[in-house]
């Protein structure tokens, strides 16, 4: 028996050596940092360097999408026509379905496959940095991406810094959120609910009680998919909600354990009261369908939400009722919003300079943007009102049979320079831009927490939060008993270490930035 084990172990170690020897080259070797090895491109006076006499470089852009995108190769070819002329770069576009995105991205990054530009965000950017999967962008931005700061506000641009170095560039989309309650407009009008003037939870409670009494077959509210009542309610989650800044840090820069605060206790106590009053749909914590789907079925009156100016359009589509919104908390921007989706350059990239040039083009060129977002004119879309920049599907084409589904404009670098799809408000980009700039930025905007030192505590605390958060927020368990339990378990899991580490990093960041 022992002999067998030893022989197996020997065999394994031999295999290890074989593997090590063979795979030395295929595994990602050390990257050439963008600042070294920069060819004599010359920063030039034009914003886009003219095609140089070097060989045409192929840059691979990978991202996620929904629906059919088998037409991506054609789109990439069209874009390449522009990019070869302007920066001597050919584009390869790899579109991956959202369901497979995280998995396939991880595999592409770990195996050293050809990949230059991709979006980060679903996993925090600091993770990619710690794993050595993306590269620093400061020098590249200065030399090859000079136009980007003209279209992305520096406040948002600098949010992509980890430990001072820039790693990701955010996109132009809804970077701020306000918090409110969306509901069925027809019923609100029917029962004279003055939703425009509801600004506190007490007032909302009165309105919901009216609904409960007048519509016995309907629940006033429910949570979203997966039992999430609301993700944030007046706090800056500082990345993972383990240690937060209350009131967006306007009062002070103290990182606190959210779950020990009175603010949290008040909210969940109220939710419990609402649940006992019959205002919340039962089993909300395990909800498998969105609030809108339940509204469509006539089961529910409304729900909480993170909102932006045209949220009501989205919700109207999915709930098939007209939507009214009560604003409860004003618009704020925190790092999590901004870094929730950014574009980065992979360590795998063999030509970071050209990659940055490509990125630069994607940020400022309207033709490239329209191709990326909507596809090819005449094949996928056509002008419906050229003067007002409104477009729609080509006749005979719709969401079910197009081969380049035009969704997710916010995913691409700069949808603001692109066309407007019919049905959206004509001034949608201006409104959104103003909304972003007028929101109150959190005092910690630009701070990104690096959890490398407290990984074990983060793991344990995440598991504990997973156990209690939804049930507390949906009022399905009694906070009197559950909240102390919750906090005790968090303490055992080491939350104080996380809070302390976060505070230390935040103070350091603050000192460096003021």
């Amino acid at each position, binding site marked *: *028996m022992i002999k067998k084990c030893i022989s197996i172990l020997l065999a394994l170690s031999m295999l*290890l050596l074989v593997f090590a020897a063979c795979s030395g080259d295929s595994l990602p070797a050390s990257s050439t940092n963008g600042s070294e090895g920069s060819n004599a491109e010359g920063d030039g006076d034009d914003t886009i360097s003219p095609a140089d006499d070097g060989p045409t470089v192929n840059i691979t852009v990978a991202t996620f999408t929904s629906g059919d995108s088998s037409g991506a190769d054609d789109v990439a070819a069209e874009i390449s026509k522009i990019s070869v002329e302007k920066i001597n770069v050919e584009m390869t576009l790899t579109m991956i379905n959202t369901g497979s995105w995280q998995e396939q991205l991880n595999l592409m990054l770990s195996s050293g496959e050809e990949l230059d530009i991709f979006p980060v965000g679903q996993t925090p950017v600091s993770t990619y940095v710690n794993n050595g999967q993306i590269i620093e962008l400061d020098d590249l931005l200065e030399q090859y991406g000079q136009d980007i700061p003209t279209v992305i506000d520096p406040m948002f641009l600098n949010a992509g810094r980890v430990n001072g170095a820039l790693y990701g560039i955010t996109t132009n989309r809804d970077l701020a959120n306000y918090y409110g309650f969306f509901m069925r407009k027809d019923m609100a009008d029917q029962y004279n609910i003055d939703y425009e003037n509801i600004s506190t939870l007490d007032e909302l409670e009165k309105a919901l009680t009216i609904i409960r009494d007048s519509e016995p077959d309907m629940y006033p509210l429910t949570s979203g998919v997966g039992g999430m009542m609301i993700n944030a309610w007046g706090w800056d989650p500082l990345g993972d909600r383990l240690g937060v800044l209350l009131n967006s840090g306007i009062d002070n820069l103290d990182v606190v354990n959210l779950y020990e605060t009175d603010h949290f206790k008040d909210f969940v106590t109220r939710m419990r009261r609402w649940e006992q009053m019959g205002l919340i749909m039962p089993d909300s914590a395990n909800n498998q369908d969105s609030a809108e789907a339940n509204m469509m079925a006539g089961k529910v009156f409304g729900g909480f939400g993170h909102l932006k100016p045209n949220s009501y359009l989205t919700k109207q589509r999915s709930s098939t009722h007209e939507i009214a919104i009560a604003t409860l908390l004003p618009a704020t921007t925190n790092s999590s919003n901004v870094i929730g989706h950014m574009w980065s350059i992979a360590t795998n990239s063999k030509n970071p300079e050209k990659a940055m040039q490509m990125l630069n083009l994607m940020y400022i060129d309207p033709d490239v943007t329209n191709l990326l977002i909507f596809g090819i004119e005449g094949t996928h879309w056509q002008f419906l009102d050229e003067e007002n920049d409104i477009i729609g599907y080509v006749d005979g084409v719709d969401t079910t049979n197009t081969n380049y589904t035009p969704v997710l404009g916010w995913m691409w670098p700069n949808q603001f320079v692109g066309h407007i799809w019919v049905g959206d408000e004509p001034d949608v980009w201006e409104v959104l831009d103003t909304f972003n700039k007028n929101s109150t930025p959190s005092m910690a905007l630009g701070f990104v927490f690096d959890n490398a030192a407290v990984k074990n505590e983060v793991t344990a605390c995440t598991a504990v939060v997973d156990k209690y958060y939804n049930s507390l927020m949906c009022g399905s*368990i009694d906070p009197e008993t559950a909240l102390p339990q919750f906090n005790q378990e968090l303490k055992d899991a080491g939350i104080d270490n996380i809070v302390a580490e976060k505070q230390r990093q935040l103070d350091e960041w603050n000192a460096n930035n003021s």
Partner: protein
Amino acid sequence: MKRSHKIKRFIPFYLMMIPSLLYLFINNYIPMAGLIIAFKSVNYRVGIINSPWVGFKNFEFLFKTKDAWTITRNTIAYNAAFIILGTVIAIAVAILLNEITKRIVKNVYQTVILLPYLISIIVVSYIVLAFLSYDTGYINNQLFSAFGKDPISWYNEPDYWPFILIFVYIWKHFGYSCIIYYATVVGFDKGYYEAAVIDGANRWQTITKVTLPMLTPTIVTLTLMNIGRIFYSDFGLFYQVPLNSGPLQNVTQTIDTYVYRGLIQLNDVGMSSAAGFYQSVVGFVLVLLANMIVSKISKDNALF
């Protein structure tokens, strides 16, 4: 002389095994070198091979939690229940099927009991919801209200869930597991049965004294293999069927779900590799022990 002649006789056998062994080598053994990831802090900038070693640091999160005992207990207890109950029911059904004479009836039964296995676990979780939902579920809505009982908030009451999960698992798997036993029973030499009947055995005695003993090698082999997997769990069963409900976690959290929940933000390949390594090692040790015990009792039935 005799030895080389002996080996020569077996050459055809070794030749037969070569393609399969080659596949195992490529598919299973070469990637096993990746086990080193569990002991490294991987930085893709320098590559996996050049990343620094960190000893057992990646394993800490599995033990530095108050839940360590709960998740271990849950994983082992459920698997023990699955192995014991699952085997008993699969064998019982296989024997019953064998008793049925009409072939068409037998085939219908076989097809129907395989159905649950073909349904993905996510869909099973929706079926469970169809029964257990608080306001629209079949049990609360139709059954209880018919008898005037108060509805139960199933997804918030942990006490029921060990039974629910075991029932769902067995329901999903017994049709599939029984096929192996059935095929084995069908292949038995009828001569043994004839001899038993001549000796005056009734139906029950035939089963217990002939069928079961002849099934023993199969039962032992399958059980030993299941023991090797005792630290693993079906993620879909323990995460999706309870709809990821918080209050139930004390009875539904297993090692796999704990690792998933904890690492979902961290995305740390070293830590998830460490978890897998830990599960493998424990299963390995347990199987070696079990195999040793079995080979002491009856050498033929041991796995190796």
